[in-house]
């Protein structure tokens, strides 16, 4: 690394020596007589005038081609950057507003959803209660009806049993007596029998 550096420096030095030497040779080509070394005359109005005009031209050139366009560009760039920054600020505020709005919307929706759920739950609860109540009522009704029917059937069965028993008793009595019994006997006998049998049966 160090050797490389030294090499480069040597090349640079040699190059500069040759360039300067060549330049001085070129310059020396015309220098055949000793320079007189006289100072230029002072107060040459033409040189002064020309120089003043030339310098004013240079100033005009600098203004026209360097300072004015670059100042204008800098100005333009400043306004562009300012407006961009302002726009960015505006957009930021807008986004913030939108975010807030969205958040409030979300909260509103959530609240509504909760309300709906609560309402639905309540309705379902009511429906359930109603259904249960109705079912209970129906069950009660069915039970009552069944009980009544059962009672009627029992009564009927009791009556039928009584009739059958009476008929059987009459047939048995006929067999025992060997004759038909009159209506009067019949009625008396049946009555007695039924009363006895009924007491036994029931």
């Amino acid at each position, binding site marked *: 690394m160090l050797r490389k550096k030294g090499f480069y420096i040597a090349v640079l030095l040699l190059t500069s020596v040759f360039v300067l030497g060549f330049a001085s040779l070129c310059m020396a080509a015309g220098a055949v007589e000793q320079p007189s070394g006289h100072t230029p005359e002072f107060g040459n109005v033409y040189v002064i005038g020309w120089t003043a005009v*030339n310098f004013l031209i240079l100033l005009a050139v600098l203004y026209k*081609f*360097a300072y004015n366009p*670059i100042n204008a560009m800098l100005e333009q760039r400043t306004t562009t950057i300012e407006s961009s920054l302002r726009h960015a600020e505006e957009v930021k505020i807008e986004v913030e507003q939108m975010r807030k709005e969205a958040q409030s919307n979300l909260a509103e929706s959530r609240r509504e959803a909760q309300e709906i759920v609560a309402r639905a739950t309540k309705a379902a609860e009511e429906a359930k209660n109603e259904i249960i109540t109705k079912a209970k009522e129906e069950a009660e009704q069915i039970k009552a009806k069944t009980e009544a029917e059962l009672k009627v059937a029992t009564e009927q069965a009791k009556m039928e049993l009584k009739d059958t028993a009476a008929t059987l008793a009459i047939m048995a009595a006929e067999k025992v007596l060997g004759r038909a019994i009159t209506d009067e006997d019949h009625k008396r006998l049946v009555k007695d029998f039924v009363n006895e049998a009924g007491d036994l049966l029931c």
Partner: protein
Amino acid sequence: MLFGMLDEVFFYLGPIPVDHIIVTEWVIIALIALISYFATRDMQMIPRGLQNAFEMIIIWTYEFFTQLMDKEHVAKKWAPLLTGFFLFILLSNYSGLIPGAAHISGFQPPTSNWNVTMTLALITFFSVHIAGFSEHGIHYLGHFVSPSPLMLPLNLVEEIAHPLSLTVRLFGNIFGEEMVIAFLLFLAPFIVPGAIMGLSLLLGAIQAIVFTILSASYIAAATGEGH
């Protein structure tokens, strides 16, 4: 014929003689104009290449002269003039290093002629007072009687000494350097003048910087609050 300087006149524009150094000045101005023109020909919002470099230089001059003068609006107003001084003097000084310059009659750097340096110094002189008046109005005259009216003669001498020193410093340096190179070329035409030419590269830049900074500080003194 006029003032006995016929040998330095390049040609006549009507009755007005045009010296060689005036043509050199034209070339220098044309060079600066050409570079500036190509740098700012197609200004872009996002700078690239030459435009970027040029913008950096211009902004740098603003910052540099603002540091030097303390007042940004004054610096912005006078930066083009001071940059013009710098570029003009630098290129003038370097024009003496072109092979053929300095020993061919007439082909000399413009700044080795004290008519030119005096003109530049006079432009500084007038600029200083214009800057002073435009900054402070009529109160600028108080500058000459501060700190007391007794100092008026001394202040006036100082005002005249400024352009005089600018003239003679620049002229003396560049003329002397040109003479040294010319004599060395006559005595030892290889390598030896090369060293002096390398030195004169430095000298040319230093003189340009010195002239510019002194002008800036004179303007700063005239526009400052120090009176």
